[in-house]
């Protein structure tokens, strides 16, 4: 089977399209998903192929996007609701947190909510403070919701398919910076063997000296850092957790037992973060294996500015990962 490089956006588009072909209860709704062909072009061509019944432009009504998806899912459809960017999911936070994540629980299993919220995430490009968040950990805070954050085309393809087929609500966060990034994907449609189980992490690079734990865009920074460190004789293992909930801590623990050192890399803010969580779990469960303090690389603790140089100053990058590793190896 031919394998070709495709952009992550194209892999997501393909996964979504195939799931719509496979199951007619899957439909897409969101701002500009139909006529405009998707703000990020993920739903390009969908309106033409599937029609207005299944590809639904919504008004700028995030609260309703969040909640309508819950009702439709409870009633038996499989909505894939898009937030144009994850920043706007804040307007729907109540529907997501209090209803998508909880109706099954508070009615003791009477209903299921098989929906996916897709959202374009991340910062950079001077989008300014209110449009510059990578807030996945906020969503991962709440039990009842799964959170997926792919770092490459192939994972995005397999993770989104799994998310759509699963009977639980999933928040699927797509890094805007990674949309154009090419990655290998088999040509053939409907590659079930590419499905990524919910909560399964992946080792993206092996190494015995330090464990770099990351997800989404952080994986790129970790891999770049690992290549730079290798030139100095330090071999980093890169763990891509892929899902923030559930967390594949077994993978992290196995790696840590080997390396005894860890740097956690994330695009989001440092306080009450992914890094805090992983570090806490490591010290609770791996204390005997710990040879150095756990380090965290995250964004600066500040709202993001417009001006480009100070914006870059605030963002994590590979060099910051290298520097953190050098403090502990």
């Amino acid at each position, binding site marked *: 089977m031919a394998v070709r490089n495709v952009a992550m956006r194209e892999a997501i588009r393909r996964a979504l399209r195939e799931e719509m072909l496979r199951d007619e209860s899957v439909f897409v709704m969101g701002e*500009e998903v139909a006529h*405009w062909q998707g703000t990020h072009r993920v739903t390009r061509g969908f309106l033409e192929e599937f029609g207005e019944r299944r590809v639904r432009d919504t008004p*700028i009504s995030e*609260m309703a996007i969040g909640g309508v998806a819950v009702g439709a899912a409870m009633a038996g459809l499989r909505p894939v609701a898009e937030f144009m960017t994850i920043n706007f999911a804040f307007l729907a936070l109540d529907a997501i947190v209090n209803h998508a994540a909880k109706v099954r629980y508070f009615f003791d299993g009477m209903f299921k909510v098989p929906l996916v919220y897709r959202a374009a995430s991340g910062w950079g490009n*001077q*989008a*300014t403070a209110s449009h510059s968040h990578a807030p996945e950990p906020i969503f991962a805070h709440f039990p009842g919701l799964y959170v997926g954050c792919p770092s490459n085309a192939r994972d995005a393809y397999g993770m989104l398919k799994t998310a759509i087929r699963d009977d639980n609500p999933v928040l699927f966060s797509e890094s805007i910076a990674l949309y154009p990034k090419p990655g290998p994907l088999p040509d053939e449609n409907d590659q079930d063997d590419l499905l990524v189980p919910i909560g399964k992490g992946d080792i993206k690079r092996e190494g015995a000296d330090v464990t770099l734990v990351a997800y989404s865009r952080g994986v790129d920074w970790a891999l770049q850092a690992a290549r730079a460190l290798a030139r100095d004789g330090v071999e980093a293992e890169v763990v891509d957790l892929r899902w923030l909930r559930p967390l594949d801590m077994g993978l992290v623990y196995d790696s840590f037992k080997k390396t005894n050192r860890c740097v956690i890399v994330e695009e989001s803010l440092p306080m009450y973060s992914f890094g805090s969580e992983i570090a806490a779990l490591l010290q609770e469960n791996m204390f005997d294996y710990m040879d150095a303090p756990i380090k965290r690389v995250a964004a600066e603790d500040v709202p993001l500015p*417009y001006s480009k140089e*100070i914006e870059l100053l605030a963002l994590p990058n590979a060099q910051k990962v290298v520097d953190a590793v050098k403090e502990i190896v």
Partner: protein
Amino acid sequence: MPSPTKDMLLDWYRQMVLIREFEETCHQLYLQKRITGVYLHLYSGHEASGVGSMAALRKSDHVITAYRDHGIALILGMDANAVMAEMMGKKTGSSGGKGGSMHLASAAHNFWGGYAIVGGHLPLAAGIALEARYRGKDAVTMTYVGDGATNNGYFHESLNMSAIWDLPVIWIIENNGYGMGTEVARASGQTELHRKAEAYGIKSFGRVDAQDALAVYKVASQAVAYARDNGPAVIEHVTYRYRGHGVSDKQYDSRDDMSAELRQWMDEREPIKILRDHILGAHGDVGAALTAHDEAARQIVAQAVEFAEASDLPRSRDELLGNTYVRSPRVYKTAASIGAGID
């Protein structure tokens, strides 16, 4: 309402050509990558909407809007240099480079800013008006909101609250036909958008041809007078965006129907031409004054570009972190405290 004097009309013309020159220059600068980023929403085509309505305000009144805010800033008299420097993220920008195109503001002009989350500024508007009511001031809050934003929960909650508390807000719905790529009729069950406000018991001043600054001024004057004495008012401005939604909008390149529509608006409903024709019709001797304003606009904007490009970018960590919080003696900090912002 006093009918606008010749001087007023000339001043509106001055504002409108300044906005147009500023916006078209921004567009060019963006294409040349001298303005960077992903968001730049221009007010070209909307000039009469802002100019005509804000002419009805007093200096003590308040103004707030969304991200399509350059024109509003210039009408209020914000320094074009500082506005252009903000576009380029410079230290000398009106928000020190932190806000950019979507976040212009000027406390000195009672301009409470441009906001980037659709509808997010609407409850703020109601809150600003609440202060006036609370303290018995007679200031009104002129609030600009897009057609698309009227479908957002923020709009409905804010309008309703302004109605029950008799808040002196003039809700100006700038209906330019689209929210990004979505026509009004595909997004709103009620396409006469001012009637949504009416449903909450807000006094409606109806729909206005907002390419005609005089028509805008006339209705705005009535609405402002009403709001000052009574409570919220709504006006629907029918207008058009000449440069699409923003710099990311490629519709006008790829769709003939849209470029034809745009051309028709420009040919038939061009706000600067409409005002110019009116002034020339009513006052024969103003040709030279109009030309002087055209020339002045070019000079002001050219000077603003020069100023902005000569200014420095913020680069330091202190500049990055500054103003996350008010510096407060009440914050307890030890050497190990984190999350307090910079000192």
